[in-house]
């Protein structure tokens, strides 16, 4: 017979009390596990979405003395003697080591075109890639456009164009009209809503058509890339692309990265704050339950002290009970938290989450034990300090 027999005997006898104690801690641990699972996934989700939202890497020809007008590429009516990028350069980007991190590659050829009295910007794009990149684009006169996602590609063929808001006003064009450029007729498949950028002034057309129109066959003026950077730093991807395109200037868009990091950081802080609150509440429940449990056993503790148990023996008995209950609560809490993340979170929050993370499987019981035992120290100390005779008279 050991001190452990006293601990286990008491737990067996007071099953209801032990379960109540365990329940409080289980709920606390479950909430932390669920919060952690959902938040980690949310972070990854947010990172990915922000990475995909617009370009975070810009590839331009290596050159000097360019005035900025379209993302760093000079556009005037005279042509510069710059070594432009080749269309084939865009094809090299998905061959880098971290190719899974490349979400969209959007090459563009840019030039000025004068038709009659009007001079406007022609931007030749690969429409599917461009729409994937420019998620904030919205079409005028099209209902039910989801925020943050693609719009339905309005262009059907190489003769379709999409016009920026200001350009459309200037040219007096709406969806369904035609636009004649250098004798060729193009269909206005859509007009973009205003978004206070250079896109408002541009006529977007199929890359090959634009190359022909601008006399830049096979060439591109810049390539915008959106790279997913949660697993690998953007500088590594920039370096890899630079290695494939030594003649180009490859730059990371720092603004986008900083915004992303700040957003992700905020989500993390929120999660930590909530977790701390939840754990404090869990601690409090354990503390109160243990205190109550020890109070009920004052007489019993008095007997043990009277027959020669040291304070340290009493502490061991009570802390062993706390350990067993906390371990059970930690395991149950991990299971409950993981299941709710796996099955409930997708239903309730539309978030797909990573459940059954092996790290939480170890951390949850450890956390429960730390909280359970530290919350039990004061009640245990209190019990062991009573003079035996006072404890025996305790009603």
């Amino acid at each position, binding site marked *: 017979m050991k001190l452990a*027999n*006293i601990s286990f*005997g008491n737990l067996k006898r007071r099953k209801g009390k032990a379960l109540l104690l365990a329940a409080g801690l289980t709920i606390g641990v479950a909430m932390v596990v669920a919060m952690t699972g959902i938040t980690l996934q949310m972070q990854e989700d947010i990172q990915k979405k922000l990475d995909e939202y617009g370009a975070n890497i810009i590839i331009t020809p290596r050159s000097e003395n360019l005035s900025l007008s379209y993302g760093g590429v000079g556009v005037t009516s005279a042509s510069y003697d710059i070594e432009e990028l080749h269309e084939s350069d865009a094809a090299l980007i998905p061959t880098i080591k971290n190719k899974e991190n490349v979400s969209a590659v959007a090459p563009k050829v840019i030039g000025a075109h004068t038709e009659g009295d009007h001079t406007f910007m022609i931007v030749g794009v690969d429409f599917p890639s461009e729409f994937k990149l420019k998620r904030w684009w919205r079409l005028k006169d099209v209902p039910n456009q989801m925020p943050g996602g693609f719009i339905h590609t309005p262009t059907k063929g190489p003769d379709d164009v999409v016009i920026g808001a200001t350009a459309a006003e200037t040219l007096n064009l709406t969806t369904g009209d035609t636009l004649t450029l250098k004798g060729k007729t193009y269909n206005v498949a859509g007009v973009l809503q205003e978004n206070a950028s250079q896109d408002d002034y541009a006529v977007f057309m199929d890359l090959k058509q634009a190359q022909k129109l601008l006399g830049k066959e096979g060439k591109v003026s810049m390539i915008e890339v959106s790279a997913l950077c949660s697993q690998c730093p953007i500088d590594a991807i920039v370096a890899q692309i630079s290695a494939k395109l030594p003649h180009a200037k490859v730059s990371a868009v720092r603004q986008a990265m900083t915004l992303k990091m700040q957003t992700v950081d905020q989500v993390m802080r929120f999660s930590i704050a909530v977790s701390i609150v939840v754990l404090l509440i869990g601690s409090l429940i354990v503390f109160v339950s243990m205190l109550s449990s020890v109070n009920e056993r004052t007489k019993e503790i008095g007997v043990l002290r*009277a027959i020669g148990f040291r*304070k340290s023996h009493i502490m061991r008995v009570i802390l062993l009970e706390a350990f067993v209950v906390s371990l059970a609560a930690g395991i149950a809490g991990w299971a409950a938290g993981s299941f709710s993340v796996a099955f409930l979170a997708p239903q309730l929050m539309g978030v797909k989450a990573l459940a059954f993370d092996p790290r939480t499987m170890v951390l949850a019981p450890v956390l429960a034990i730390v909280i359970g035992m530290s919350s039990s120290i004061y009640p245990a100390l209190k019990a062991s300090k009573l003079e*035996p*005779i006072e404890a025996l008279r305790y009603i």
Partner: protein
Amino acid sequence: MLVDIHSVKKVYNTNGTSFEALKGVGIGVREGDFVSITGESGSGKSTLLSILGGIAPPTSGQVLIDKIPIYELPSEKLADFRREYIGFVFQQFHLIPYLTAVENVMLPLCITGDRGMKDRALASLERVGLAAKSSRLPSELSGGEQQRVAIARALVNEPPIILADEPTGNLDTKTGEEIFHLFKELNHAGETVIIVTHNPDLAKRTGVTVKMQDGTVVHVYDNARN
């Protein structure tokens, strides 16, 4: 003297009022004595016994057991003293309800982790005539049987002093008589026994009776002479 106390006072303070349970008590008990402490309710006899048992510190005074000033020991050493020197039998038995009879008796031994503890516990139960019910829970035993288990627990560590607080108080006359007889046997076997009782007939059958009243010793009777 095995037990030697001087000028022991005990004051209880509750809700701002103080009550003097013992007002300067001194007694001496030799090894092998069979002592009874008697008196009306509130005379201080249980308080005195608790002080002798190392479970209630006096407000002032000296308490020497086997020449050890027990209340000058650090509290963990005092606990060790209780385990080794004292076998305390409580009026309400105070058995642990979720442990069997033999497990209750083993309690003082499980601290030291004695290997032969089960055998020693069974031997102790045998001494009180309850070896056959060793695996019963206290709720499955009668009042007299529970008291015997409590006595067995008090004896298992072979302490030199047995203290019993109203050991027959909760029992019928016949059972009470059996229990008292057990104490007499233990005393004959060499144990020093001090019992508190309000029963004057039982008191007369001990070696020495200490009569208490209002927190002081009013008389000491040598029953062998009378």
